[in-house]
């Protein structure tokens, strides 16, 4: 442990590990980080135990990058532990920031998810009814599993978060700028979204935009697209108008519609509702029936509109009761 070095931890809750890879995608810059920082805890890359974390003094860590949503009791326990041990806790990536892809599970109840996975799966033994329990007795021992929560939470739903870094995953250049800001102590006011822009993806996109009027929506494979023209004008769903900038327009530049991973644009209350407004206004019809037919070409619209941020929506589905 070097004297005066920044004490850093990285953790993943309900996450795929892509955010950890995004840190490594800063390439040789990571070696510069190693000169000024000690990595004290990083399950995906460094050997360590939860006990090591518990043994640390409160506030011993200068910075924790927490990726992943809070899905179960283990995620929550470590989130609370890291909050206590860290001077700066950063929600890193879409899942910690807004709930991310795991957050789409909030459209289903816990019971329905467990039944689908453990009782209805086509590869299961017929009649199987084994569902994970938090405590199971085996040969006189008690085995424990984390409790699976009824819904997926953002990190900020569970603990106080100092900064938010959006992205699935955060763009390496943004990761770099955030780490530099921490090292130099040039962070904005607490609670800010850092490592992102203050505009929309549309504002940064260089495709030509003209009048928007579509008669049909296309899945990307159903159409040969014009690489210069706005994707939405071509009937290809693109969340750019409702999404915060800062990613470098990665998806539209790769001929894919924006998926909205940088979260709601500054000032937007609800990313999905905002996108709904944009998408409906480009439909070229004044006939309710025809409008319905055109909208029929948008399968699973809700999952699309909230792909990375369902738990951040103003509305929350309640199951039962």
């Amino acid at each position: 442990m070097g004297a005066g070095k920044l004490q850093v931890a990285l953790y993943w809750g309900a996450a795929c590990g892509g955010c950890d890879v995004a840190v490594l995608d800063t390439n040789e810059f990571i070696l510069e980080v190693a000169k000024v920082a000690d990595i004290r805890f990083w399950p995906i890359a460094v050997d360590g135990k939860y006990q090591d974390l518990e043994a640390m003094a409160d506030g011993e860590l200068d910075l924790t990058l927490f990726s992943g949503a809070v899905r179960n009791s283990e995620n929550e326990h470590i989130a609370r532990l890291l909050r206590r041990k860290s001077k700066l806790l950063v929600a890193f990536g879409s899942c910690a920031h807004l709930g991310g892809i795991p957050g789409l599970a909030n459209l289903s109840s816990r019971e329905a998810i467990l039944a689908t996975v453990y009782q209805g799966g086509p590869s299961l033994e017929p009649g199987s009814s084994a569902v994970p329990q938090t405590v199971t007795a085996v040969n006189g021992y008690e085995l424990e599993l984390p409790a699976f929560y009824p819904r997926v939470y953002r990190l900020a739903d569970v603990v106080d978060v100092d900064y938010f870094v959006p992205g699935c995953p955060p763009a390496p250049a943004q990761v770099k700028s955030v780490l530099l800001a921490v090292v130099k102590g040039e962070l904005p006011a607490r609670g800010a979204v850092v490592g992102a822009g203050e505009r929309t993806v549309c504002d940064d996109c260089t495709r030509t935009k003209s009048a928007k009027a579509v008669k049909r929506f296309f899945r990307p494979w159903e159409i040969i697209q014009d690489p210069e023209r706005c994707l939405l004008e071509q009937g290809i769903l693109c969340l750019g108008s409702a999404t915060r900038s800062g990613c470098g327009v990665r998806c539209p530049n790769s001929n894919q519609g924006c998926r909205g991973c940088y979260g709601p644009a500054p000032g937007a209350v609800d990313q999905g509702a905002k996108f709904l407004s944009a998408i409906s206004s480009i439909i070229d019809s004044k006939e309710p029936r025809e409008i319905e037919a055109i909208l029929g070409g948008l399968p699973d619209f809700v999952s699309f509109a909230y792909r990375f941020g369902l738990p951040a929506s103003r509305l929350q589905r309640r199951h039962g009761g």
Partner: protein
Amino acid sequence: MSYEPRIVGFLCNWCSYTGADLAGTSRIQYPANVRIIRVMCSARVDPTFVVHALAEGADGVLICGCHPGDCHYSEGNYKTMRRYPLLKRLLAAYGIEQERVRLEWVSASEGQRFADIVADMTERLRALGPCRVRSGLEADLLTR
């Protein structure tokens, strides 16, 4: 105390608000459950407003605009017409009953029609009970 549904009503300035005004000046009785917000056009009602109203505790949202073809801004109500089906789909995904959000065309001369719509919607919402999305997350965090 018996349950009284709270309805947020977004009324366009040119037709529906004037229609509601006519209901008033004609002394037509209708339930006081609707809280009217005048907007310049039904197209001004961003779906975010509806989401916000429900999240803040409204039991229903009523959007009223000029009849198709009659929009003061020629195309505004068509935008509203296009948004509505998708908004309904969005709300359905959250488990919000279809009756809670309603789009109606009310002209400046349809005071009686406005009163009837409010009366009908109030009764439907009374039967449904309070909107369940109210502070859903907070309730969950406590009972988890």
